[in-house]
């Protein structure tokens, strides 16, 4: 399917790829963004990569809509090579269960598994950061083991601590800020996803990979124990 380009008002446009959530299509989004960044054009202000689209914000005084469409169409023609930076993989250490993961037992019971089995399946995956959104630094992760998909809480919590790791439907993610929410919280990381005082405020970028690493597991058959 040929990507479509549509205007988003007079200072932005969106390139719509095939509207599916999968690694291959998302890779096309990340690759196109990388190619545009490489041109270092003053006319391009910034971009928002999403699951299967790339929004480009531009300066119409420097480039008009048709000319930008033409330029992007040319880059899309070259897409076969899928040029990109090397993906970065992050290890996210997590304290699972207990006070850090109040819903871990529920998730285990829901799936007729042990707590240890839930943690094993959660930490086995290599997740993809499809995009960031909803709140600064919040990653939309792909790759959750289907057997762990759990519905959201019926009543959302008023406050979920920063760094909480959770599951909602077939998604998993990490809260970069304290916020209300309906996710099943299975653990917590001390790693900071968003810190405005850091030189690079954001730990994760779209296209990065991520692995969860169990530091401690609480609430399983073995009580509190460290993971090897």
């Amino acid at each position, binding site marked *: 399917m040929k990507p479509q380009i549509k205007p988003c008002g007079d200072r932005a446009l969106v390139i719509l790829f095939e509207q599916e959530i999968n690694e291959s299509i998302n890779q096309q989004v990340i690759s196109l963004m990388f190619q545009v960044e490489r041109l270092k054009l003053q006319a391009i202000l*910034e971009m928002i990569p999403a699951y299967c689209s790339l929004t480009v914000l531009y300066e119409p005084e420097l480039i008009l809509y048709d000319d930008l469409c033409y330029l992007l169409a040319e880059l899309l023609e070259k897409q076969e090579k899928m040029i990109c930076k090397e993906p970065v993989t992050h290890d996210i250490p997590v304290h699972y269960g207990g006070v850090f993961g109040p819903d871990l037992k529920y998730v285990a019971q829901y799936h007729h598994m042990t707590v240890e089995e839930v943690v094993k399946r959660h930490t086995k995956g290599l997740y993809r950061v499809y995009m960031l*959104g909803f709140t600064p630094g*919040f990653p939309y992760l792909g790759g959750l083991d289907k057997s762990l998909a759990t519905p959201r809480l019926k009543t959302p919590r008023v406050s979920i601590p920063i760094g909480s790791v959770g599951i909602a439907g077939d998604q998993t993610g990490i809260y970069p800020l304290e916020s209300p929410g309906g996710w099943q919280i299975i653990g917590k990381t001390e790693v900071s996803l968003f810190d405005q005082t850091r030189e690079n405020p954001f730990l994760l970028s779209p296209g990065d990979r991520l692995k969860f690493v169990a530091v401690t597991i609480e609430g399983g058959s073995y009580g509190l124990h460290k993971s090897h």
Partner: protein
Amino acid sequence: MAYIKVIKPGMYSTIQDKGRFGFRKYGVPTSGVMDDLAYETANKLLENDLADAVIEMTLSGGSFEFEADTYIAITGADMSPTLNGYPKPLMWRTLKIKKGDVIAFQSVASGCRTYLAVKGGVQLPLEMESRSTYIRANLGKGLLKCGDTLKILSNQTCGSMQLVCEKDRPRYENRTLVKVILGPHEDAFTPHGIQTFLNKTYFVSSTSDRMGYRLQGPSIEHKTDADIRSDGIVRGAIQVPGRGEPIVLLSDCQTSGGYTKIAHVITSDLWKMGQLKPGDGIRFEAIDIYSAQKMKAPMIKRTLIESERSFKIKIHSKQYDVHVDLIKEGGACGEKN
């Protein structure tokens, strides 16, 4: 260092500048002022940097004591400002302020937001290149409260005293026409849906804020449903969720979302959204992108004040305070209290 002391903050007042750009791909909203036109004019009246930070007040303003001599400009909605308790022509002009002066604001007569700019801008450390406030992520100063002190520069001079004459000031009506460019998901709507969107009047609901204005009005018909794979959102996007009532996304909107977007407000009309308040009506008019990109950015005409005079006169035993500005073009543009 000099300060502005917040005696009373007003209903919802924050420090904003042009916005926080460059971080949308990390999920950081741009924030920034809701009425770019009034904001830009305030900074121009002070010969400030166009990205200098200002106080943005909403619906009902505060009172502020200046702890140093400086210059200020007040633009946007008229909140009947007073200087040391006196109502004077204070809006849309370069104002000289003496240490100890108090500027106080009441509620809006028309419009929604008022900008108080100070010479040199409100001094705050830059957070990700901006002084704008985004409360959800603790960026910027936060909601202003009683007793807050805002740093400003001292020993400032203004090269010229300027004024926006009454006739050149924007009128904030409670019914506005806003130009839009359709798309990117216009194909998700039936022709009837698009016609509804472009022909009916929508009203700003009370659940509207800096993130977005929820509009009430006739339901806009989708072909199938309102859900899309989440994609990027820019300021001015108009989302239509399943219920069919549009939401115009504004300065604090999230950077991505999963509802169909029927259109976007054109950049030069975005300031109009910042001056609408609950109950106000909007009509949307579609234009093509080529016309939109040919349009010049809106600008408010400023005039140099050569000299100004204030005096009292009595007419039929009624006393009036009169202020006269002698402006560069030769005609005086007078204001009477």
